[in-house]
Every structure is written in structure tokens, then in C-alpha cells.
């Protein structure tokens, strides 16, 4: 009847990059949406509050984009504490909203549920409410038990990586979502998802029970976009690349000589004008090798 058609939410990568502005609170899913994060770095965005963990969090810190982190974990199996995170916190130049996984999840749930807080038991008796005064020790109104009231954690933009989406923002994380992805999505004002493939709406409808996000505000086609991390069903992590990055950052921060770091960002991010250029530099042979399980 109407002449209108259903709107596509597909964004070009550079448009998506523009959505993230200095000073915002953003969240990073798992695997990290590196294609989008490279735009954040390239666009020289600063003063972000970032909800994330591990290497991807440290990547944004090292790139100078971050003022404050909301994290439960800034280490890795291979390195006790992430170098940029550690150095910036010890210098007093990076603020930490100290928490832990259950507390973070509770705050995200509160945001998604439109509640001012959620109670949580993990953290009772610890230093967390002393260090992070946003956490309030409370008595439960039913039986008087001591719990922690976690305030809602609201996000401006959540950036995620997933397998597929149709052009209307119906996203399917094939083979499982990252731990917090759906919580980060629900707590956010807007969500952009980078995907390996954009598929037909019919493909989504053939298995609606696999749709994990039904209203992404934007989807961006970035195949191999989680590189150097894995994408389930598509490729495994690029171990060598990750270790190279860690070495570069470690050296940069231990020697107080940031050339190594700048070199890394120049070599793997800033010199490229598109994701395709990034992939070209990695080379098809290398990319194919990552698809061998």
C-alpha cells in the first residue's frame, strides 16, 4: 500500500566510525570488534569511558583514546597486567571504575531493565565498595541480608562483532555470543555490530531462534574484522600478531619510549584508509591460514 520500504541499517565503515565521539561511554564486546576500534583509533577519538577487558581495552588505552575504564580484568593469560593500562593507572592518568564480573553484569542488567540498581552478593566484605564509592552496601528489604547495590551502567554506543546480519539489523552470533555481548547491547543507547557476512532476511527467518540482537542500530560488513582475534566458525586468533602487539606495547611502556607503540599503530592501523587495505597488508595467504582450525 505505502510506497515506503523497510529501512536498511547497513553503514559504511567510515560512517560507523563517526558515531563514536570523544567523551562518550562505549563498550566493546568479545571477540573485540577490531575493525571498528581501528576507526576509533584512526579518528583520534579521546576521553572515552570504555567498558571492556584484556587486550582490546589495552589497545584503546595505548592509542590514547581512553580517560576511564570500567573493567573487571585487564590482564591476559600471557601477561599478568596489560602494559598500557598498568602504566597509565600507575601514572594517575587513567581512571578505573573498579569492579568485577558479577558487579559489572549487574550494573548492565540494571540499565537494560530500566532499574536504578541491582543487588549483588559478590563483593560483600571486599574493598570494592571502598574503592568504588558508586557501589553502595545495602540491607535487603526482605530479610536484611547485606548486599551490594550496583548502579545502572549506561552506555552510549556498544560495538560488537558477530557472524551475520541482514540489512535490517537482525544479528546472529553463530556458535555462541561473547560473554557480555548481550548485556552490553541491552544497556546501550545504540549498538553497532560488525559482521562477517550480510545475509538475506530469509536466511535470518529460516532460524529466528538464532537471532541474538533484533534491532542493531547499525551493521557494518567487516569480514575478518575481529582480527587478530577469532570469529567462531570463520577463523581462529592470529597468535603471532597478538604476541607482536604485546611485545611492542610492553617495550614501549617499560622503556618509556613510545616509538615502538607509535610504530605499531602506524603499521597496523593509521596508514590504512579502509579495512580492505588492512586485509591487503595482512595478505590473502595469511588470512587463509587463519581459517585452518
Amino acid at each position, binding site marked *: 500500500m505505502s510506497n515506503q*520500504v*523497510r529501512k536498511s541499517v547497513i553503514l559504511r565503515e567510515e560512517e560507523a566510525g563517526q558515531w563514536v565521539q570523544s567523551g562518550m561511554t562505549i563498550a566493546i564486546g568479545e571477540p573485540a570488534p577490531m575493525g571498528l576500534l581501528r576507526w576509533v583509533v584512526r579518528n583520534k577519538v579521546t576521553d572515552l569511558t570504555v567498558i571492556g577487558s584484556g587486550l582490546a581495552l589495552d589497545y584503546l588505552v595505548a592509542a590514547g583514546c581512553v580517560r576511564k575504564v570500567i573493567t573487571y580484568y585487564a590482564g591476559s593469560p600471557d601477561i599478568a597486567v596489560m602494559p598500557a593500562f598498568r602504566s597509565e593507572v600507575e601514572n594517575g592518568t587513567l581512571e578505573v571504575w573498579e569492579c568485577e564480573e558479577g558487579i559489572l553484569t549487574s550494573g548492565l542488567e540494571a540499565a*537494560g*531493565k530500566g532499574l536504578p540498581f541491582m543487588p549483588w552478593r559478590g563483593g560483600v566484605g571486599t574493598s570494592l565498595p571502598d574503592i568504588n564509592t558508586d557501589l553502595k552496601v545495602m540491607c535487603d528489604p526482605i530479610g536484611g541480608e547485606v548486599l551490594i547495590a550496583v548502579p545502572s551502567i549506561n552506555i552510549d554506543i556498544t560495538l560488537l562483532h558477530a557472524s551475520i546480519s541482514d540489512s535490517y539489523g537482525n544479528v546472529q552470533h553463530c556458535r555462541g555470543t561473547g560473554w557480555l555481548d548481550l548485556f552490553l547491547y*541491552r544497556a546501550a543507547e545504540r549498538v553497532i555490530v560488525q559482521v562477517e557476512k550480510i545475509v538475506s532476511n530469509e536466511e535470518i527467518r529460516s532460524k529466528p*531462534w*538464532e537471532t541474538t540482537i533484533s534491532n542493531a542500530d547499525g551493521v557494518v560488513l567487516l569480514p575478518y574484522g575481529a582480527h587478530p582475534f577469532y570469529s567462531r566458525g570463520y577463523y581462529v586468533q592470529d597468535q603471532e600478531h597478538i604476541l607482536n602487539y604485546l611485545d611492542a606495547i610492553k617495550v614501549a611502556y617499560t622503556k618509556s619510549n613510545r616509538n615502538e607503540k607509535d610504530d605499531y599503530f602506524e603499521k597496523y592501523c593509521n596508514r590504512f584508509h579502509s579495512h580492505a587495505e588492512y586485509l591487503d597488508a595482512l595478505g590473502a595467504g595469511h588470512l587463509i591460514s587463519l581459517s585452518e582450525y
Partner: protein
Amino acid sequence: MSSPATIKELMAVVLARELEDGDHLQVGVALPVPEVAVRLAHIMHGPNMQLIFLGARMNVHHLESIPLPDFGWDSRSVRWAESYSDRGHRFDQVKDWHKRVFFVGGLQVDKFGNINLIGVGNDPKKLKFRGPASVGTPTLTTHVGRYYIVLNNHSSRVLVPKCDYVSAVGWHKGGSDSRKELGIPGGGPKLCVTPLCVMDFTDVEKRMRLVSLHPGVTLGEVKANTGFELVIPDIVPTTAMPTHDELTILRSRIDLNGLLRSG
């Protein structure tokens, strides 16, 4: 096809015209009039609407026909889904319900649009009439952008001065700040549509007010069948009848078995 619109068809068209492209439309159970309305709006002017039935979310603007199911519990009604909310949790994202529009009935409705689905009688432990319970209406009406009260009959037993129990808060004890004072963020009830008329709520007091009378219905009839004093504007128009297009689409592409033509 050329028989005039029934009252239920009229009600469905009134509601369909209220709906805007981009709305997320959730219909409660046992409400065939809104079930038809959301389909009609989706076909007529809603390429970006989402319909939410039985926890499934769908956009079926591309279909020629969006028929009502024969049977309310038909598991096949979700066949058009793009997602099932059972995967995540249907209440984990109420934050985004400002985009959502809801439809609700009631055993009792008062002049501020408060609704009772619990039951009738003084003793909640032994109700004179036990209702079906509140379903998700307290949460939905708390958070959705706006909602519509749709009644199968307009009588002073339903439209009462005061609900015996409140399942869903409308404008509480009245006043445009009343929801805000309670801390419930949604936009509240917008219209109350019955077999006799369309009503809305006044701007300041948020009292129920007559908007239009359905063809053939008199003001006296409405007053006699309303258990509270309705705000009556100076001019009360007749509810605009369905257009030829609306009725054709409604009958040929949605209500194939004539559910709204009977009873």
C-alpha cells in the same frame, strides 16, 4: 465484501490509524481487535513496524496477506519471526520499550485509565469474580511509549468509578505528573476504544474524555453505560468509518475467517 463495517472492524481501523511507522507493536492475549489493527497498519503504512506475538518479533510488510490464526494458541503464528525473545530475556531490555506500543483489556477500568485484571470483590482471598491475573500488564504499561485500552463491551460494570484492584496503572489518581510522581516512565494510556466510542485523557487532569461516538451511538447511551463522569467536549464527532481500502484489506488480507464480522 461490500457489507458495512462492523463495530469491531471500526475499532480495529481506529486503532490502526493511531499507529506510526517504526512502532513496535505488542498485543496482549485474547484481543482480536488489536491483532487485526496492527496487521492493518503494518500493511497500510508501516514498513518499519515490528509485530510482537507470543514472544516472536516480526516484520511482514513484504507479505501480501497477514492472516489471523484460526486458534489463539497456534504455535504456527510465530512462523514469520525474525527473532524469539525467549532467547535473551523478554524483560532484559525494557529500556527500549519507549518504542513499544501495547494494547490491553480489563475487567474494570476507571476514569484515569487504571485497569483491573485480578478480579472483582472485597476479599482478595475469595473474589466474587476471579480474573485471569495481570499477565505482563503491570510491567508493560509501566514502560511502553504508549498504550491503548480496548474493551469488548462498554458498560458501567467495566467502566467503574474505582477498580477493586489495580493491575496496571494508567494516570493513577489523575494529573499529568501522576506517573512521573510514581516513578513509572512510560507514556501511559492514550485512548480507550470501546464498542460505543473512542475516549482519550484530558491534558491536565488526565480524566477520560469522549473523543468520538461510533455511528448510531448516542451520547446518552455512552453516559448511561459509563460508571463514572466522562469529560464531554462541546463537539463530539462521529468516529470516521473505515475507507473502502481499509475494509478491503482488513477483510481480504487479514481477517480471512471474519472473526470481527461476527459477534
